[in-house]
């Protein structure tokens, strides 16, 4: 990514500012330019940025410079707080209707991810003990109904469809069907459409008026640019949305659209999509999104993900080993196994602030190669595993032969191991808000 962290840029801006005192207007102004550019590069809508900058400037000018923070960090703190506040501050969930079924309706532009997210919601609520019914109201896109049916099957949820009949009639009929068959949740998938297509927007209104959904959720692609405000505003004006699902956040976009959409609709983002698998749905954390947009690394997500995947005793042991630098190839192997199911190691590493992502390219870890790595390490002697520096050319040859791999594979493994070891040392120095950063493995 060509994007340099805002933190570093602000540090540079404030380099000249030493000593104590108050943040003056001139300092703040030059810092705000960096903040503004960072937000714009993150695709936050221009007018939203302007508004925010005004608020932040008002707050920052005249503030005492705290002893514990550099001026740069202090500004970031204010910016982060304002962004978090704008994004709603706290989590916001879908409200379950007291009188079932709870009806949720998904709307949005073409290709935003409605069908997949209808499936994800079914999966999510099923895990919470709900009994949802999916409804296929996309009668336009070729094979959209087939897609929903396959998705429904994968998450064990029936799909109500009536081919390409009128979607308003389908939705109404589905509601009756759900009531008659004790479904306590109705998830309505609709066709993607442009917010300026009057006829199709009317159709959504009619579906809404036919089934009175408890929540209309606008599905928005996290990579959307400045136009996000137009889209969100039109859908909101015409339908009255209740919340937003932000999709494709597993990409490398900063996702500034989140801020724009929230600013123009005032409605909370309730879920985020983080992958193509139907389990890849998470509740939205405003504070994490704020730091992502600012490019400060989503430390919290990393930690949470890691913790969910590994028992804490092992983590502690590992940490100790790292600190005492006795990180062996056996430990390396164990780690690889633990990161299975956590997404690729480099994905996770790339979320940690302060790490040079360019260096990550040197570490090539692919889950599918774990069996091979295992074979290689198992072909080493105990001594070699504990002290890889012993492994000279002839040993490499033996190991390759023993594991049925090529010498290059052995070399690549040793290289990755060394890189990771280096990286971990670097990580040991990193700090999180809550004190020492827990290693994500």
């Amino acid at each position, binding site marked *: *990514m060509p994007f340099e962290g805002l933190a570093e840029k602000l540090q540079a801006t404030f380099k000249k500012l030493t000593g104590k005192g108050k943040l003056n207007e001139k300092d703040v102004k030059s810092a705000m330019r960096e903040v503004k*550019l960072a937000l*714009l*590069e*993150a*695709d936050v*809508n*221009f*007018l*939203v940025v*302007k*508004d925010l900058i005004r608020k932040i400037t008002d707050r920052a000018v005249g503030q005492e410079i705290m002893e514990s923070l550099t001026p740069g960090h202090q500004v970031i703190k204010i910016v982060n707080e304002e962004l978090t506040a704008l994004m709603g501050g706290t989590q916001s969930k879908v409200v379950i209707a007291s009188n079932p079924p709870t009806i949720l309706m998904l709307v949005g*532009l*073409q*290709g*935003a*991810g409605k069908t997949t997210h209808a499936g994800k919601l079914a999966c999510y609520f099923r895990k919470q003990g709900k009994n949802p019914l999916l409804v296929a109201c996309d009668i*336009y*896109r*070729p*094979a*959209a109904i*087939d*897609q929903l*049916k*396959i*998705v429904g099957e*994968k998450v064990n949820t029936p799909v109500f469809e009536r081919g390409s009949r009128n979607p308003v009639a389908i939705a109404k009929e589905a509601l009756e069907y759900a009531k008659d068959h004790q479904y306590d949740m109705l998830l309505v998938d609709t066709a993607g459409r*442009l*917010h*300026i297509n009057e006829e199709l927007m009317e159709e959504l209104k009619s579906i809404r008026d036919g089934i009175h959904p408890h929540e209309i959720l606008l599905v928005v*692609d996290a*990579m*959307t*640019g*400045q*136009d*996000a*405000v*137009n*889209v969100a*505003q039109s859908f909101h004006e015409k339908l009255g949305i209740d919340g937003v699902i932000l999709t*494709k956040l*597993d*990409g*490398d*976009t900063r996702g*500034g*659209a989140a801020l724009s959409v929230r*600013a*123009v609709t005032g409605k909370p983002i309730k879920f985020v999509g983080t992958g*193509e698998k139907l389990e890849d749905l998470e509740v939205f954390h405003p504070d994490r999104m704020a730091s992502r947009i600012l490019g400060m690394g989503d430390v919290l997500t990393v930690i949470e993900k890691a913790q969910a995947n590994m028992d804490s005793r092992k983590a502690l042991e590992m940490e100790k080993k790292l600190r005492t630098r006795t990180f062996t190839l056996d430990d390396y192997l164990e780690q690889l196994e633990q990161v299975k199911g956590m997404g*690729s190691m*480099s*994905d996770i590493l790339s979320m940690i602030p302060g790490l040079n992502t360019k260096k990550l390219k040197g570490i090539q870890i*692919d*889950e*599918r190669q774990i069996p091979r790595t295992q074979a290689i390490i198992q072909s080493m002697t105990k001594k070699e595993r504990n002290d890889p520096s012993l492994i000279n050319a002839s040993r490499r040859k033996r190991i390759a032969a023993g594991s049925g791999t090529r010498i290059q594979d052995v070399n690549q493994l040793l290289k990755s191991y060394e890189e990771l070891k280096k990286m971990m040392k670097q990580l040991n120095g990193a700090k999180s808000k809550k004190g020492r950063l827990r290693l994500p493995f």
Partner: protein
Amino acid sequence: MESDDRKKKSFFSRLKNGLTRTRGNIADRVDELIRYYREIDDEFFDDLEETLIMGDVGVPTSEKIVSSIREKVEKEKIGDPSRIKDLLKDNITSILKRNTQPLTLPHPTVLLVVGVNGVGKTTTIGKLADRYRKEGKKVLVAAADTFRAAAGEQLEIWCQRAQVPIIRHEEGADPAAVIFDAIQSARSRGTDILLCDTAGRLHNKKNLMNELEKMNRVIDREFPEAHKEVLLVLDATTGQNAVSQASLFQEAVGINGIALTKLDGTAKGGVIIAVKSQLDIPVYYVGVGEQTEDLQPFVPEDFTEALFES
């Protein structure tokens, strides 16, 4: 003093009306600037830069464009803001026209269509299949998206509409194997153009990009006599991430050209200017709707006009 007031008013009224009136495009905003500024000064250039940024052109590219206009204004001592619009149009058009290689389709050609999820790959293939068949070409389509639910069915419907044959395997099959089969079939049928649909993938996913590289290698190895074009599909609604998409797909498989879709919405695809200015990949086609005929060749002048259209 009076002009100061007017400037202020414009700034505040724009801010106030801003969120309810953002549909105004680059043209409206440039016109507004021209109306409010009597002379070209620093503030004018700042506002001009903002205008471009609001059109998704991105910060670095907008800065570049504005500074080259500023240079010209200073050199030619231009004092009249109304001339800015033409300067801007010329500048953008020339970026878009730079090093443009036209798409060539000799017999046989393989067109590998790639891009992130939901941008319009399958639809674009449906439109292209129809177009090429109508031009008298023998077209074959390979359904190498074996991942997304019902991707094959979707493509099959498009192929029926376009009346072209399709090679399909079951869901979950190896996409490279589909391409392999399609190449054998193309050769025995004497196909002119083989269109390959691929699953949407985010450009930052190493393993998925490896999978794409593999498909690309299969084409090179199994169909060496064919001319190959890799077409990247970008969604005009996308912001600055499109630059990252283009550069990472470029790195993985080498992009020959771009199809820019969904230009029938309110987004005008300004990010393509950033992509073009940073990577120099030509744009071949634009998508302007969901029907077969909603695909047009890209014409830089027309694109710029549309960007400035009220």
